[in-house]
């Protein structure tokens, strides 16, 4: 769009600003709530930040919020990070390798293998949750990091994405690498993975968020509080039965829980955007 019409420019900006405000407003409210005392918040949500910022975050970070019915915040953040990283890295590793196998090797039942992987797209965690639980319980992986992450690692989406990408890599590149004396693994490491760099970054961000936002699965496989994730923690704090939830502390926790994904996105932003919009060849 290279049109230059002042009215349109104003309208465009208005729409964009409104859209942005719509997304930012809830987060702003959460932040505001986290800077007041519990009493103030329960009386009705103020619109401007209060003076309890340091106190609230201090409480949440140091004392933990045992009173609110959840394990210490640091531990939950750590659990969430471990789970998300394991899921993101595990998914990428497995799907890169399986896509490599499917695209570059001729083996019996190759097509069947691909379709089997593809069909699992139709079975998200929620659908297969009971059998998966049974298996994980049978393997004794309840209340462990392995139990939290491994069942979520198998991923058709990422496999499919890498398959599509690998298929756009020109065959001549494979031929050239063969003539240059690169075996399959060398080709994978020296050519394919570097070429997938932007895709890798985009996928990492998406999968990290996917892992971070998991709620149902961690809820099922963890009964030991020391394996609780931050998302579960917030839910526990907001749902404390008879008592009034300590909203100011809940919101402070929520804001803190937002930070790691934000850090991941910001640090990967440039690669991430490139991975979504361009295919480098």
């Amino acid at each position, binding site marked *: 769009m290279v049109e230059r019409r002042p009215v349109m420019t104003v309208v465009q900006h208005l729409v964009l600003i409104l859209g942005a405000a719509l997304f930012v407003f809830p987060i702003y409210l959460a932040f505001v709530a986290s800077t007041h005392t519990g009493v103030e918040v329960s009386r009705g949500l103020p619109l401007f930040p209060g003076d309890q910022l340091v106190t609230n975050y201090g409480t949440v970070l140091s004392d933990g919020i045992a009173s609110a019915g959840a394990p210490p915040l640091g531990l939950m953040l750590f659990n969430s990070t471990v789970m998300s990283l394991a899921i993101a890295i595990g998914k990428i590793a497995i799907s890169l390798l399986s896509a490599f196998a499917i695209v570059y090797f001729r083996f019996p039942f190759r097509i069947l293998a691909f379709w089997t992987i593809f069909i699992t797209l139709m079975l998200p965690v929620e659908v297969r949750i009971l059998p998966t639980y049974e298996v994980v319980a049978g393997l004794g992986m309840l209340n462990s990091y392995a139990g939290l992450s491994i069942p979520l690692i198998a991923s058709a989406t990422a496999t499919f994405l890498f398959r599509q990408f690998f298929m756009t890599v020109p065959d001549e590149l494979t*031929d*050239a690498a063969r003539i240059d004396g*690169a075996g399959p693994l060398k080709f994978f490491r020296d050519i394919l993975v570097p070429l997938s760099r932007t895709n890798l970054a985009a996928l990492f961000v998406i999968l990290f968020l996917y892992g971070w936002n998991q709620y149902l699965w961690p809820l099922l496989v963890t009964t030991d509080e020391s394996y609780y994730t931050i998302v579960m923690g917030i839910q526990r704090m907001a749902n404390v039965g008879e008592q009034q939830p300590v909203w100011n502390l809940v919101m402070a926790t929520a804001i803190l829980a937002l930070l790691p994904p934000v850090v991941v996105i910001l640090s990967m932003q440039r690669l991430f955007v490139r991975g979504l919009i361009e295919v480098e060849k």
Partner: protein
Amino acid sequence: MAPIAIDGVRKVYPGPVEAIPNLSLEIADGELCVLVGPSGCGKSTLLRMVAGLEEITGGEIRIGGRRVNDLEPAERDIAMVFQNYALYPHMTVYDNMAYGLRNRGVPKAEIRALVDEAAGILGLSALLARKPRQLSGGQRQRVAMGRAIVRKPQVFLFDEPLSNLDAKLRSQMRVEIKRLQRRLATTSLYVTHDQVEAMTLGDRLLIMNHGIAEQVGTPMDVYHRPATRFVAGFIGSPMMNFLPGRVAGDGRGVHLPGGWLLATAKARGHAGRPVTVGIRPEHLQPAATGTDSDTITLRTELIEVLGADTLVHGRLDGHDDTVIARLPGSLQVAAGDNLPLAAEPGTVHLFDETERAIGHV
């Protein structure tokens, strides 16, 4: 440096589709042999079999006397230049050229020296730190060549390396490839569908059609003594004119419609047989106005002025198909003119019903 022997090679794709039924070819040490033919004729398949990128269904390929049928491409001591260059997009020019050497475990210092040498030959020294996407088409082409020569292989394989370049760059790179190949004296196999490239580059040409070798010979051979009608039509631009005719009763000439009698010694022994007469556009020349039986009138329909030459399209008296004559540029002609023409003696080609040339010695 090594000769290549292609011995009764056969290629069948699953289907089954027989791409190459049975083909043999010997390429001498240091020779540049061009495989030329229309698309789908099997020339690239043959090249890829020599490279080891395609399995050989039957027969044998030897490079430097060594049977290579079951060797990996990297073990055959060959290098290949691809049509789309196939440079590694994420590597610098230097790394692109060094990659094959690294995989062979060549010491670092030696790699540096080899790459610098190759870059010097190709004028790439200033570009070594660039990525392929920062290069022009001609430069990429040169890097692809550099990647091939840096390893000093026994054989170069070229797969239509100039097809992606514009016309000017193409003729320039053509000369460069020729010069480079002479300088390095490396046995080369060059695939192209462009007959100009084939004629100018090749020491010898293999003209392929439907997986069959129609003719093997020097450029002059295939131009002056095409073995089949296909070769005659494929080599030469504009294309050779083909006309139906019948050998005269005394075997000293060929009768064509329009009362044209072409004297040719080639018809001897084929008296009375129908033949296809082939005359190249450049061998049709204006004749003195006359109604002699060895001239024929061309009703001109379209004139293409090339400067040095003028291409005249038209129909000959008594013939339905259009023919093309390449006449001197100095000749004044306009569309619609009637132009008496004669064929230069000794330049006429005859083909029998099986489309094979007759009368060649």
